[in-house]
């Protein structure tokens, strides 16, 4: 079998279920290891910042969370589009599994942004371009989740979600550009999140390691969720019946 055909194997929900089940524990181990290393570097190796003191350490989770929020949205739109174009149920299920985690990271980016803003700039919220765009991204996530949850027919929900997420993805640069433009017009807001402390090498390393930790975490939790979705959607198939019976037999 060529590699291409092998990959398409996992388009079958049953096989993807088994694959993710095997991978998940390792991903959690990876997440834990990277988190420990990253946090250690962030708190015990990276020095105090001259202007912002210790509050700047929030950046070690704020920036990775913001990056993940954008990456996960693009991944969600990508898999939803694949599911729509190729009528691949598994891809659509993966897209649905990605959404809540993406929304979670968006919220974390906003929350940590606010808590960083207060000591750094004196206000709990600043309408700078990046934070405002992040807020709009949260709305895009919530809109997607609300739409797919509101539609009862799974196939219609998958397709409508795919269309919405692709339209959203296309609009993200437009929205970002217009928000940045809006922000520079209103000259009161000279505050900008881009005025982060000059990054010492250790700070950058800690941030990158925690980014990788968030990546591993995202894989792990999205795999967990997609397994739940697969069981929900494939409830009436033989392989799920076997799975349940095996589980009952083993007393699980």
């Amino acid at each position: 079998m060529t590699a291409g055909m092998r990959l398409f194997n996992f388009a079958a929900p049953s096989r993807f279920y088994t694959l993710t089940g095997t991978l998940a524990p390792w991903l959690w181990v990876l997440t834990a290891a990277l988190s420990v290393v990253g946090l250690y570097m962030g708190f015990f190796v990276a020095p105090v910042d001259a202007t912002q003191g210790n509050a700047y350490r929030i950046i070690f989770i704020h920036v990775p969370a913001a990056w993940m929020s954008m990456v996960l949205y693009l991944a969600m739109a990508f898999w939803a589009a694949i599911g729509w174009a190729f009528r691949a149920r598994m891809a659509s299920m993966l897209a649905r599994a990605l959404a809540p985690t993406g929304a979670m990271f968006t919220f974390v980016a906003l929350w940590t942004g606010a808590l960083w803003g207060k000591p750094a700039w004196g206000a709990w919220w600043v309408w700078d371009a990046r934070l405002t765009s992040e807020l709009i991204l949260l709305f895009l996530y919530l809109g997607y989740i609300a739409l797919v949850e509101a539609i009862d027919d799974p196939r219609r929900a998958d397709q409508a979600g795919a269309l919405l997420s692709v339209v959203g993805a296309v609009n993200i640069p437009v929205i970002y550009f217009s928000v940045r433009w809006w922000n520079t017009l209103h000259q009161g807001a000279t505050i900008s999140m881009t005025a982060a402390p000059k990054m010492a090498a250790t700070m950058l390393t800690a941030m990158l390691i925690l980014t990788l930790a968030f990546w591993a975490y995202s894989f792990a939790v999205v795999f967990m969720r997609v397994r739940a979705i697969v069981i929900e959607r494939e409830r009436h198939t033989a392989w799920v019946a076997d799975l349940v019976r095996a589980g009952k037999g083993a007393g699980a």
Partner: protein
Amino acid sequence: MRALFLAVLMRDLRLAARRRIDALLPLVFFVVAVSLFPLGVGPEPQTLRHIAPGIVWVCALLATMLSVQHLYAGDQADGSLEQLLLAPQPAVAVASAKCVAHWLVNGWPLIVAAPLVGVLFDLSAPALGSLVIGLLLGTPVLSLLGGLGAALTLGVRSGGMLLILIVLPLAMPVLIFGAGAVGAVESGQSAAGHYSLLGALLIATALGAPLATAAALRISTE
């Protein structure tokens, strides 16, 4: 395809003419909503003049969201939507015709009412002009985006709120440039940049939205 487009357009206009009250309700909402702000914010003329562009635009946006909900619902209820989609011509004709009809019926009253409402906020004449130009360019975009939202949420529970939630983020650039244009004129600058951006948004949306709406209609009626 032009025949189908014109047929749907004329039909919608005729239907709207028969139910004039339905067509005017969003306009009434617009005026009422705009009038709430001074009550909430206080009658200080300086403040009101400053926030007027934003208020007018946001209320226009909300009024459009409200009026667009029924765009396809009536046709779906009596089965005519399915018939329209069965036609050999692409659904883009139906989608575009619906949006144009919506703009003619619901967009124009807003464009006409906005300067009158702007006078309540003591906006200067050039600012009022800028408001009208911005709305001329922006309301079609709102109709197009609203049409997409209506097609996506057709027949879905709590479709109204859902439509607003999914369309508002997409409409934010229009809001930013439209209100920004008035703000620029108020502070004595040129709004040419704003108009160009609005124009660009209009062209891009006019090219993309009907296609997406046609796809959404197929998804929603399968």
